């Protein structure tokens, strides 16, 4: 059973530019013709299904996986989560296998409570979840939730694609002069 206390039933409202909302949800809007509002209500993942639900002020109702909805707040959490070397090391360990806090602490000089604090940051950023196995809790890492890191580069890729296209236009304009 997946136990994900900190993300249960949390609901947040964000003011996101309409263009961004359209970009985020465009793959999901096959049936909708127009997005009329730019308030996006995001429900964080229901723990078991790893799915989240979002709707646009009642006009549309959408269901999609949690990591597709990224907001600056959430992105900052992800970047902060991986900014500490100990937390990156924890993610490396969890990539090999699900582990308990004691098993993780065995790889560090720091105390168990310190490890727990780092795990809390990773939980809050949604990168790991807690799973109960008998009396102990094990932590599971979802690497795909690092998508904001990949998307960060993707923004710049689009940025340069646009600008290099402009450079080409600039040059062809000049060669005609």
């Amino acid at each position, binding site marked *: 059973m997946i136990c994900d206390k900190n993300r249960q039933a949390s609901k947040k409202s964000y003011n996101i530019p309409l263009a961004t909302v359209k970009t985020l949800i465009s793959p999901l809007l096959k049936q909708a013709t127009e997005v009329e509002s730019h308030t996006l209500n995001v429900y964080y993942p229901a723990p078991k299904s790893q799915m989240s639900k979002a709707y646009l002020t009642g006009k549309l109702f959408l269901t999609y996986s949690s990591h597709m909805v990224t907001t*600056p707040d959430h992105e900052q959490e992800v*970047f902060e989560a991986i900014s500490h070397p100990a937390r*990156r090391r924890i993610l490396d360990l969890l990539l090999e296998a699900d582990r308990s806090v004691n098993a993780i602490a065995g790889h560090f000089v720091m105390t168990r409570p310190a490890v727990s604090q780092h795990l809390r940051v990773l939980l809050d950023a949604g990168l790991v979840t807690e799973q109960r196995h008998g009396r102990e809790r094990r932590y599971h890492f979802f690497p795909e939730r690092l998508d904001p890191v990949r998307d*960060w*580069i993707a923004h710049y890729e689009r940025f340069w694609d*646009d600008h*290099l296209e402009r450079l080409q236009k600039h040059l*062809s304009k000049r*060669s005609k002069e």
Partner: protein
Amino acid sequence: MTKTIRREILIPQPREQVWRGIADSTALADWMFPNDFEPRVGHHFTFQVPPNPKVNFDGLTVRCEVLECDPPTRLAFSWEAAGLVGTQVSFQLEPNAEGTRLLFEHSGFDVSQPHGNQAFKGAEYGWAKMLGQLPAVVTNLRSITS
């Protein structure tokens, strides 16, 4: 762990002409942003990305220093904006039967070590702001182009 964006484009113009498109302040203002670029190593300059209230984007300054300037072959400069530090942009021009082959690189995106705590200090230069701004920059650009 750093990542690099690479692009290769073929341009049907001679290398000298492409060089004037990338190593000239007026030309850069046309396809990039207003700037005070000068083609000499060590020169510090900025690109001023204009604000766009329509998408809640309040503008951005990109700080650069010319690192290499070897006409008409190679231009490289550092690139720092908001939370992004320690990256470099380079243009390599090679003559080609049809004109010029342009090899573009933007390197130094450190995804595993986001520049220590530096990137997180202060609201103005936070990652969140950077992340929030880039789509706006691109949108801004599209609205100018279209």
